[in-house]
């Protein structure tokens, strides 16, 4: 079977068209120059075990190919899901190699072509892979210069390169291009990376703004997502779903469904799927399946969840402790004890989980919307009892991920069904399935006991998070006696939970920044001044001062009635601070966000335009978990089934957004997550400033706001 058939003519740049297995890869890419980089221990997230389990060559982590026409293909294990590395990576590559930006092509995440990668998350693409790649590319450049010099018959220090053309320094006409070097050759170089990458001052392309490289493909409908591929004989699978988590299938009667024309049924243990060439017909037939279940559900719902969590037997782990918390409390002139709550929220990417599985000989190939192509490959291989060489995962464009597409159940389903039937099988979840199987951001409780002295210094900080996760639980303020404790337990949740854009940090930052605000109010000092007084970290101070200037903030003690809130935090290597302005309708409890200003510092910013877009995205998306988003459930039954039950931010919500990115000649950090972490805290603090009402639970729905308003004396 040749794959060309089901590709479109216009293949977006990150959909590899090479249909080869890796051993034949070099042969099929034709001539040219292959440079493999061995980056081993540099690449975070690659466990030794994961490396060993790969059957394909594992002696390199990245490579580039330079073709005879000078085109440079860069193969990495990351994927593009809207965060924009398809734009920023070529900038890095072009800059380090001194070659035109247009000559760079990215191939991403194909388990057969690309080097192993643990997953696209944690804003790691830029901060972990980036520096490693830069060093590697610097090495590649030096190899190219060496080859060029040899060709020109001079020594290496006599040549230099511009726009992919190597020439003799004082004789520009004596030149050879990268493409010419690659001509009629097949050179494979394996490099161990040592030399230093370029200095920030030498950057030409990095640090400049570029529009999305995939913009045209996406506005014309040509960009291919997993559900957009078509194959001869392809069938859509609609899978029988239990009514709730914790329900197990006892029996299923598919006879009525089978009477419908064109329907076939695939069954493998608990997996019952209706297959049809028309997805709507398959869906109709699925409704005719009668099934019985055994129930074993947890006795908890969205109202009782926090009580349930605090009563659950959990394991305490002290994450960090300085000084002695009891001494700190004794040294405090006042103590505030609070409990904060945060709900389950859904990822709700616009593209539901989708996968197309098909056989290529005895190999299972799956095109899947996944943030973890290699994890998905592992998962499929394990489930089907196949070697990794018999499973290939190819991620096309992703319609959003936010952590939710680290789970790859749909890809396993497609793989199982294609193996079972031998046919190409499309598994495209409905919105209801997407909500049902989403690994939600965990509901969580944070307890804080903190104290300060009369002169406005924080003297004690005792922070305990229950089931949020520890990311972002650091004190960040300079407190002599402080302790952070993390409580966790298996099976505390009635369904799957997982990483949600800046995992744990949204909850922890909301709680911490609320508490800080409460202390400032108690002291009767301006909340910005209070923060600055208790911070030591210059980078945090830097973003706070920057956002205050951007917003035009003037000090006042809260509640000032102006509706201004402040919050700051740290995530994935980046520093952020926000100031927001809200209006609260005291009759309805509705919050209107008027303005949000945000300053961020993520080291050297590769693509300021891309980073600004991420900031805007974080602010917009973050209003959702702060104000409306909450999964409703009873036991394992999820009541949230479509967007009518789950309000995400829309156009009318838009505040005036002002952003500022502080440039620092420090290693680049990821920008896809940090700016979302403050949204709960900054809006809660703004509501307090507007009304004097303190919100201890997210989301701040009108009912909760009204309740809190009723408590204001």
């Amino acid at each position, binding site marked *: 079977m040749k794959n060309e058939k089901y590709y479109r003519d216009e293949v977006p740049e990150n959909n590899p068209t090479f249909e080869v297995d890796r051993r034949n890869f070099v042969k099929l890419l034709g001539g040219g120059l292959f440079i493999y980089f061995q980056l081993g221990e540099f690449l975070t997230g690659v466990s030794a075990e994961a490396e060993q389990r790969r059957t394909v060559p594992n002696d390199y982590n990245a490579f580039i190919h330079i073709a005879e026409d000078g085109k440079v293909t860069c193969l990495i294990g990351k994927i593009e899901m809207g965060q924009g590395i398809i734009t920023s990576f070529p900038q890095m590559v072009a800059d380090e190699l001194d070659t035109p930006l247009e000559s760079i092509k990215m191939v991403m995440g194909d388990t057969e072509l690309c080097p192993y990668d643990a997953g696209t998350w944690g804003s790691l693409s830029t901060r972990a892979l980036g520096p490693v790649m830069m060093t590697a590319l610097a090495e590649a450049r030096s190899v190219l210069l060496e080859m060029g010099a040899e060709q020109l018959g001079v020594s290496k220090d006599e040549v230099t390169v511009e726009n992919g053309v190597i020439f003799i320094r004082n004789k520009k006409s004596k030149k050879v291009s990268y493409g010419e070097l690659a001509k009629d050759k097949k050179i494979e170089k394996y490099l161990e990376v040592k030399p230093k990458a370029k200095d920030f001052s030498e950057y030409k392309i990095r640090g400049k703004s570029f529009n999305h490289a995939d913009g045209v493909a996406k506005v014309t409908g040509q960009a291919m997502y997993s559900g957009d591929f*078509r194959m001869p004989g392809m069938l859509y699978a609609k899978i029988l779903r239990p009514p709730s988590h914790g329900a197990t299938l006892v029996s299923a009667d598919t006879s009525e469904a089978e009477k419908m024309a064109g329907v076939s049924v695939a069954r493998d243990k608990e997996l019952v799927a209706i297959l049809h060439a028309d997805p709507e017909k398959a869906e109709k037939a699925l409704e005719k399946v009668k099934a019985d279940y055994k129930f074993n559900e947890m006795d908890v719902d969205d109202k009782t969840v926090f009580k349930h969590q605090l009563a659950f037997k959990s394991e305490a782990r002290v994450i960090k402790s300085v000084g002695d918390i009891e001494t700190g409390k004794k040294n405090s002139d006042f103590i505030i004890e609070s409990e904060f709550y945060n709900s389950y929220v859904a990822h709700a990417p616009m593209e539901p989980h989708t996968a197309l599985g098909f056989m290529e000989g005895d190999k299972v190939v799956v095109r899947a919307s996944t943030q973890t192509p290699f994890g998905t490959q592992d998962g499929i291989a394990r489930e089907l009892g196949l070697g990794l060489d018999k499973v290939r995962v190819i991620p096309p464009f992703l319609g959003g991920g936010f952590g939710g597409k680290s789970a790859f159940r749909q890809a396993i389903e497609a793989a199982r069904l294609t193996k079972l039937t031998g046919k190409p099988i499309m598994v495209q979840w409905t919105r209801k399935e997407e909500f049902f199987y989403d690994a939600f951001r965990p509901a969580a409780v944070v307890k804080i006991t903190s104290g300060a002295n009369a002169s406005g210094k924080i003297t004690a900080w005792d922070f305990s998070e229950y089931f949020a996760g520890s990311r972002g639980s650091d004190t960040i303020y300079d407190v002599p006696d402080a302790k952070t404790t993390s409580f966790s337990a298996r099976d505390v949740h009635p369904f799957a939970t997982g990483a949600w854009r800046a995992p744990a940090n949204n909850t922890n930052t909301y709680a911490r920044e609320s508490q800080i605000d409460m202390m400032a109010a108690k002291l009767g000092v301006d909340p910005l001044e209070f923060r600055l007084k208790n911070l030591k970290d210059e980078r945090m101070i830097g973003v706070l001062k920057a956002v205050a200037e951007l917003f035009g903030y003037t000090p006042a003690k809260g509640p000032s009635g102006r509706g201004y809130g402040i919050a700051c935090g740290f995530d994935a290597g980046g520093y952020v601070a926000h100031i927001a302005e809200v209006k609260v309708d005291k009759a309805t409890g509705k919050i209107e966000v008027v303005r949000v200003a945000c300053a961020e510092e993520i080291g050297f910013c590769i693509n300021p335009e891309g980073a600004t877009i991420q900031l805007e995205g974080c602010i917009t998306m973050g209003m959702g978990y702060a104000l409306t988003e909450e999964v409703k459930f009873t036991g394992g039954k999820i009541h949230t089934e479509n967007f009518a039950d789950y309000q995400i931010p829309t*156009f009318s919500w838009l505040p005036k*957004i002002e952003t500022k990115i502080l440039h620092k000649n420090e290693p680049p950090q990821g920008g896809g997550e940090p700016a979302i972490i403050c949204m709960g805290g900054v809006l809660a603090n703004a509501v307090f400033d507007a009304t004097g009402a303190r919100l201890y639970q997210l989301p701040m729905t009108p009912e909760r706001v009204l309740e809190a308003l009723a408590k204001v004396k």
Partner: protein
Amino acid sequence: MAETIQFELNGKKVEMPLDKDQTLLWALRTNFNLTGTKYGCGEGYCGACTVLMNNEAVRSCTIRMEEVAGKKITTIEGLAKNGKLHPVQQAFVDNDALQCGFCTPGMVMNAVGLLEKTPHPTRQQIVEGMEDNLCRCGAHVRIIDAIESASKAL
């Protein structure tokens, strides 16, 4: 003989067997392989499936094929003419009004429909006109900017 229907799709007359249960969304995606029109919710909430029917933005997941007979349908694939992007498409590219791009075809089509009705909308009219198209990535600010600049270019 199975009943057939005819309609105009991206400027061409087409004919297909009528299936009363079929929605326009899936006819486009499966019968015509026009996969730029996306499934986001299937129940009319998100707008990812927006196309033009007789120059009016509609949600193809809620339209049965019966209603399509004799109509003029334009999808995202039919917007660019002779390789030149429609001004709204161009404005989305220029303003970087997208991230993952999954909502984008629906956003573009809805915006075209909006400008068809109101060629020079105020920002408030843009917000109201786009309100029910969902974007999870938070590209909203730029989408409004894009539509505003497209309305000037038109």
